[in-house]
């Protein structure tokens, strides 16, 4: 109850710091999902449609990577982006782009695996017709992705949920710098470690509510789109 009051108080006061932390969380995770989707969606569909050597191995590996711990992704990201690492000259460590990169890597296997599953189901319906019309594997992939777009929306939401709720990756590659790379989850971790549990809980409540609201909005949008555009 204490936490609930603190949460409501924080939101009502329109605390500028809180707003910027929330804005950063949303923009980092949203960007990460978009970046990941650019690669993961075609890959997932291609795995459902294509017939190439190594397809099954790639599928197994991709499914396995869904279970990559966020903190491991963060560690690998750190080693890559550190000045002492291969991508050091880019100077991306401890910046929001680094966080986007890490979360994109984290979320990519999930998006690809879910897309593959969705595409496989649709492919069963479309395969003969698309082949009959002369579609190549690449053309079929594109057509399939567009046709299952409503389901893909849910896939993207799943990816967003995974990204916005993780703390291990962004903590390490972002450094949790006040006002620069501090997001909701790392703030919750910080406040917990400072022993300010009511505040941490309040922030947690805000985060969960936000994610629920986004999902509700997305669901409503999808329903409307489906009705209007089939």
């Amino acid at each position, binding site marked *: 109850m204490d936490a609930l009051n603190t949460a409501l108080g924080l939101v009502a006061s329109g605390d500028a710091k809180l707003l910027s932390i929330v804005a950063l969380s949303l923009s980092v995770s949203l960007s990460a999902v978009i970046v990941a989707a650019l690669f993961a969606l075609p890959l997932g569909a291609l795995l459902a449609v294509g017939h190439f050597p190594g397809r099954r191995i790639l599928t197994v590996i991709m499914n396995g990577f869904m279970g990559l711990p966020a903190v491991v992704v963060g560690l690998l990201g750190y080693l890559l982006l550190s000045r002492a690492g291969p991508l050091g000259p880019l100077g991306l460590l401890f910046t929001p782009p680094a966080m986007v990169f890490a979360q994109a890597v984290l979320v990519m296997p999930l998006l690809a695996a879910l897309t593959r599953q969705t595409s496989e189901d649709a492919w069963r*319906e479309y395969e003969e017709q698309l082949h*009959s*019309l*002369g579609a190549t594997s690449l053309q079929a992939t594109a057509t399939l992705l*567009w*046709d299952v777009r409503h389901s893909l929306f849910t896939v993207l939401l799943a990816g967003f949920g995974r990204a916005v709720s993780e703390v291990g990756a962004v903590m390490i590659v972002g450094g949790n710098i006040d006002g620069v790379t501090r997001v909701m989850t790392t703030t919750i971790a910080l406040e917990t470690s400072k022993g300010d549990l009511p505040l941490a809980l309040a922030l947690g409540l805000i985060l969960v509510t936000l994610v629920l609201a986004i999902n509700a909005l997305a669901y409503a949008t999808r329903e409307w789109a489906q009705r209007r555009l089939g």
Partner: protein
Amino acid sequence: MGTIFPLSLAGVSFIPGGTPVLREVTLAIAQSSRIVILGANGAGKSVLIRLMHGLIMPTTGSIRWAGTETRPGAQALVFQRPVMLRRSALANVAYGLKLAGIARAARQRRAAAALARVGLAHLAGRPARVLSGGEQQRVALARAWALEPAILFLDEPTASLDPNAAAEVERIISDIHGAGTSIVMSTHNLGQARRLADEIIFLHRGRITERTPATLFFKQPQSAEADAFLKGELP
């Protein structure tokens, strides 16, 4: 651009996983044919059509178009259940043209014309998946027709439709043939076969037992299996 005919099958068998579905099929199809393939369930009609269209590869034997092994693009197949993409009827028809590399403006024109020919111009903007079964099958026919195919395959195209819709589809098939396309179709419906066929090919357990001009076939089939089929003794 020369003719793709004749379509010749020589000693074609289809034996998936050791089970013979089609055996030693040899036939040739010329231009302007109107052929109906008849046979009991499981006789191999669908498989034969898919082989001719190039959707599946024969286990043995060869399939040649005008003497070459190249599969031509000027052909289309209409399935028993139409597969509509999640877009408008017009977009579905245009899709086939897009795959064929036709430019956008020409695509839209030809697709609209094809839809008009099948009597669905008023539904062009409607999402194809909300149309009735008969309407969807007509969109599928428009999609095939828009490609201006030299030969059109149909696999039991009216089996899932009510009599009115079926009649509409038969009329369109006649129109397509009238415009110069060869027709090769399978059906269960003997009346339909009588109405649409110039020639009947009868399949029994994966083998062709006869190939007879339609009028003769229905008066006096040349094979015992076909005779039994017409009398209703085969399923």
